[in-house]
């Protein structure tokens, strides 16, 4: 293990990209964009479902739905879509525990599904999510909302709603912290630790 000098909360080479307040403002802005783009509440607009991708996409989807309800008065169903079984990198890592998939009542058929994740990077997680979604039903359309897009795509995938675009190098890591999973809100940029 690499040594971690100084304060454990602020390890060396770590920089805050978004504060707690920034995270809240970013989610609110994304909520407005969703309402606008999906013409939410209009008579001919499709029913929308928010599906979070574990781990941190799941609480983000719930937060996004809460903001949307606040701003538009429309309660969107939310769910969780675990993509582990669809990943193409299972053989490159130790065994991953499976997460829970919880589709909202009524499923995804003929709905506009908005996938929600914390960080968009290679795009492989989203590809897995699209495959998982296909087995879960037949949505009318699928969109993607991410808190951070850090670039370096390896597949032809782009997000429809981006909280913040962050230019990064591959030697860096982006960590999203959320109250629900980590006890506080923040987005951090960190140099990858040297291999011991």
């Amino acid at each position, binding site marked *: 293990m690499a040594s971690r000098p100084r304060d454990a909360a602020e390890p060396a080479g770590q920089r805050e990209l978004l504060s707690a307040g920034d995270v809240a403002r970013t989610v609110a802005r994304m909520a407005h964009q969703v309402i606008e783009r999906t013409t939410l509440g209009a008579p001919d607009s499709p029913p929308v479902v928010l599906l979070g991708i574990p781990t941190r996409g799941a609480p983000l989807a719930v937060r996004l739905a809460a903001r949307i309800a606040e701003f538009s008065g429309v309660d969107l169903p939310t769910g969780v879509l675990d993509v582990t079984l669809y990943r193409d990198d299972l053989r490159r890592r130790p*065994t991953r525990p*499976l997460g829970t998939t919880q589709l909202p009542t009524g499923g995804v058929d003929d709905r506009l599904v908005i996938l929600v994740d914390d960080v968009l990077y290679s795009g492989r997680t989203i590809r897995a999510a699209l495959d998982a979604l296909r087995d879960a039903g037949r949505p009318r359309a699928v969109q993607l909302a991410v808190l951070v897009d850090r670039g370096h795509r390896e597949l032809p995938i782009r997000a429809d709603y981006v909280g913040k675009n962050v230019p990064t190098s591959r030697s860096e890591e982006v960590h999203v912290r959320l109250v629900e999973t980590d006890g506080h809100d923040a987005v951090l940029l960190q140099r990858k630790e040297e291999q011991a």
Partner: protein
Amino acid sequence: MRHLLATEGMDAATATAVLDTADQLKATLLGREVRKLPTLRGRTVVTVFYEASTRTRVSFEIAGKWMSADVVNVSASGSSVGKGESLRDTALTLAAAGADCVIVRHPASGAAHRLAGWLTEAGTSVVNAGDGMHEHPTQALLDAATLRERLGALDGRRVAIVGDVLHSRVARSNVHLLTALGAEVVLVAPPTLLPSGVDRWPVTVSHSLDAVLPTVDAVMMLRVQAERMHGGYFPSAREYSIAYGLSEARLGLLPEHAVVLHPGPMLRGMEIASAVADSPRAAITEQVANGVHVRMAVLYHLLAHEEEMA
């Protein structure tokens, strides 16, 4: 996990991880039209059964197919296995042909261990689908999954295993797994069907089913094999059934919440009354359904991770 050969020595964390995976797989597939996951695409799973067992073989086959693995079934008859090829040569042939996982059922205790030894170099995983009188670990896992479903956590629960413990690989695997998961096990059998040294197993032993039934959260009935009935282990099928069979009357001795399990195939009227097997207390069809999910979970834990250093 590299191989699944036994539940003996399996720690609670490992067992729980497999059972949790099985639960998630079950939830994922629940109500789906397309019961197919791409997880093991391109992986080859071979079942080699030296003993006939439609139940277990089909369960493994479905598990593999639902995970998108290519599943090949080899039965002892109609292949070189039936022509007297040694187990070792069969193993090496399957590995050379590209099997990522060999699922083996064999009448000799330890056969799966031997296979694992020969296949370690080839990187092929081995699943013990029942070896002689030794173990049948996926059966114990599916029993545990079923009990968790009905009872919640197994910690502190009391489970009776009734019947031919001596010859039962199901009993051995269940004793180890249930104990690891914190349950208390009571073995109920005539003395002739208890293993030597059972007093040093982490179990209690009784010869009275009537005394045990009111105290347990679950009762697991073991199959009485025909050859035992004629082997002089007990005087007659009738006497066995009277003393150790789960009759309808005995069902009433069980607490309200208690579950009845049977690994199948059942001898209705012998070790279990037909009405008991079909009662809502019995979880026998759930066991079969959970068998597929547990075996999917086992394949996931064996095959869906990076290569471990040998």
